[in-house]
């Protein structure tokens, strides 16, 4: 069984800044739990954990950051800072929802702590091309950061990206995933303090097994998140996107729009869960997931979930699975545009529509290039 093999490797490789005691057993228990089975209904958890456990030990992330932002390896941190990192990583691992966190934490070797001072504008580029890694990004009050994250895994890899936004801080996160890995997993965990804004603009191409967990905690009054994700999943490729957005404070807002285009026998899973806590008066949340299947034999599992413990909120959510609009195709054909180009225009429109508001050309271009290739 995959669980057993994981245990031995974890004990062997535990780096000193991770609280390794009991972690391996905990992980094994989690991998085997019912909860995990439910959350990993459409992606194989045993396969993912085995693949991640077999990745070579050592940090695999490269960072280039502007001057205002300090980037420090965990191994170079002071004793106190290291204790902080340890507790931050432990918090991520403690979440029973993410059983792979511990494996990635233990496999990562060293990690990166990225910090901005208050009131600055900065930018950072993260590249993840192999293995396991951990990045902690702390954006201080009133600071604003532009993050470009590129995932180009050729082999199995996983990443913990733990983000903390201070008061009124802003993060614009462009995430481009275009690897071709037997297994790619990531947890992006965001905590946003009062009036902070988190903006995600993601594009993905899927992999043999690709899973993206994104957990946003709107943990201060007026904090907001705008998440958009476009994906192009090709024949025999898999993409599983799991979002959790927690509204824990008053007047928090979130808008989520994910579009997935499937070709051939692609498999896509989307789960978007909006959780409005009792204290979140005046919260507003909307979530849309649209899927467009071009061929017979594609598989789409989509489930928007709302969990609301408050009357005073505005929420909407919806999911659709469809095919190309025949009326629109005919309109284009009637203008002399050939069948193939007509379909391509509609596919491009479907994907760019969801990235439009965020206006990220990087995320868009990565998809369009692939779309035009075939």
């Amino acid at each position, binding site marked *: 069984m995959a669980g057993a093999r994981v245990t031995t490797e974890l004990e062997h490789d535990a780096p000193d800044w991770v609280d390794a005691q009991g972690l391996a057993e905990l992980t094994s228990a989690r991998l085997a739990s019912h909860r995990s089975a439910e959350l990993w209904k459409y992606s194989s958890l045993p396969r993912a954990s085995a693949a991640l456990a077999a990745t070579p030990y050592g940090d695999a992330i490269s960072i280039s950051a502007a001057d205002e932002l300090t980037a420090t390896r965990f191994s170079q941190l002071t004793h106190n800072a290291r204790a902080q990192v340890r507790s931050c990583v432990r918090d991520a691992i403690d979440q029973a929802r993410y059983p792979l966190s511990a494996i990635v934490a233990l496999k990562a070797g060293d990690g990166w702590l990225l910090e901005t001072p208050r009131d600055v504008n900065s930018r950072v580029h993260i590249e993840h091309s192999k293995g396991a890694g951990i990045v902690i990004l702390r954006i201080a009050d009133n600071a604003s950061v532009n993050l470009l994250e590129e995932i180009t895994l050729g082999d199995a890899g996983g990443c913990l990206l733990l983000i903390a936004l201070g008061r009124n801080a802003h993060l614009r996160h462009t995430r481009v995933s275009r690897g071709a890995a037997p297994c790619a997993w990531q947890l992006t965990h965001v905590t946003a303090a009062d009036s902070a804004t988190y903006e995600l603009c993601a594009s993905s191409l899927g992999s043999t097994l690709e899973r993206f967990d994104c957990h946003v905690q709107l943990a201060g009054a007026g904090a907001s998140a705008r998440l958009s994700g476009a994906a192009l999943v090709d024949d025999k490729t898999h993409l599983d996107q799991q979002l959790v957005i927690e509204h824990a404070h008053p007047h928090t807002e979130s808008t989520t729009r994910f579009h997935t285009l499937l070709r051939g026998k692609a498999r896509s899973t989307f789960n978007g869960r909006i959780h409005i806590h009792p204290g979140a008066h005046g919260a507003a949340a909307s979530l849309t997931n649209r899927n467009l299947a071009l061929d017979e034999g594609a598989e789409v599992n989509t489930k928007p979930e709302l969990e609301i413990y408050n009357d005073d909120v505005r929420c909407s959510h919806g999911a659709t699975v469809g095919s190309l*609009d*025949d*009326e*629109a195709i*005919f*309109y*284009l*054909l*009637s*203008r*002399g*545009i*050939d*069948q193939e*180009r007509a379909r391509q*225009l*509609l596919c*491009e*429109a*479907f994907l*760019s*529509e969801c990235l*439009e508001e965020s206006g990220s050309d990087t995320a868009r271009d990565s998809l369009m290039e692939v779309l035009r290739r075939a």
Partner: protein
Amino acid sequence: MTLLAIDNLHVTVQGKPILKGLDLTIETGEVHAIMGPNGSGKSTLANVLAGRPGYDITEGSVVFRDAPLSELEAAERAHRGLFLAFQYPVEIPGVSNMEFLKAANDSLCAARNEEPAAAVAFMKRVRAIASELDLDPEFLKRGVNEGFSGGEKKRNEILQLLLLQPTLAVLDETDSGLDIDALQTVSEGVNRFRGAHNAILLITHYQRLLDHIVPDHVHVLSDGRIARSGDRHLAEKLEAEGYAWLAQG
């Protein structure tokens, strides 16, 4: 020269006979108007000419510029110079109008072995046509017909007509939904297009349009056939008396 020759055309839509022996010949340089009650088959004729799937020709023939239309795909018909201004233009969110126009223009150029216009020159030309039609250039950036009002959609159809310069333009109720000023603007556009080397088939319910775009021939379509043909005065008679008198012959 004969542009379009329709002979004894029978068309069924989802097994239901709609056109039942329609004859119509259009020569270059001519403007034909087709009037007729709701549901008589006017849009069906327009759609079958444009090649919409689901419209089956069960009998008769349509020849367009010496080619049997049934042998041509919808896009090939456009390449050959056929254009349909839709009664209900579809909205295509996410495909910008300008991008769409460029794709259409490039396709037609490719089919004619012409070099397509460079992007800047092309955009300039499109903007000029838009301004002739009192269409705000902002519409060119929006998705095709996305959120356009009824009248704006119709003007967008005529913009395409003027840009793509087809040989045969079929205008399906382009006047409905237009306010009085827009009707004037659109008619002027169509009249600019009108020429010795092309032809127009106007489908309309209203004589008013025919005051602006004066037809050479007027036909009444009733129950899937041309019930009466005449000159522009036929339209005036219809306007005054309705369709009931046709039944009495």
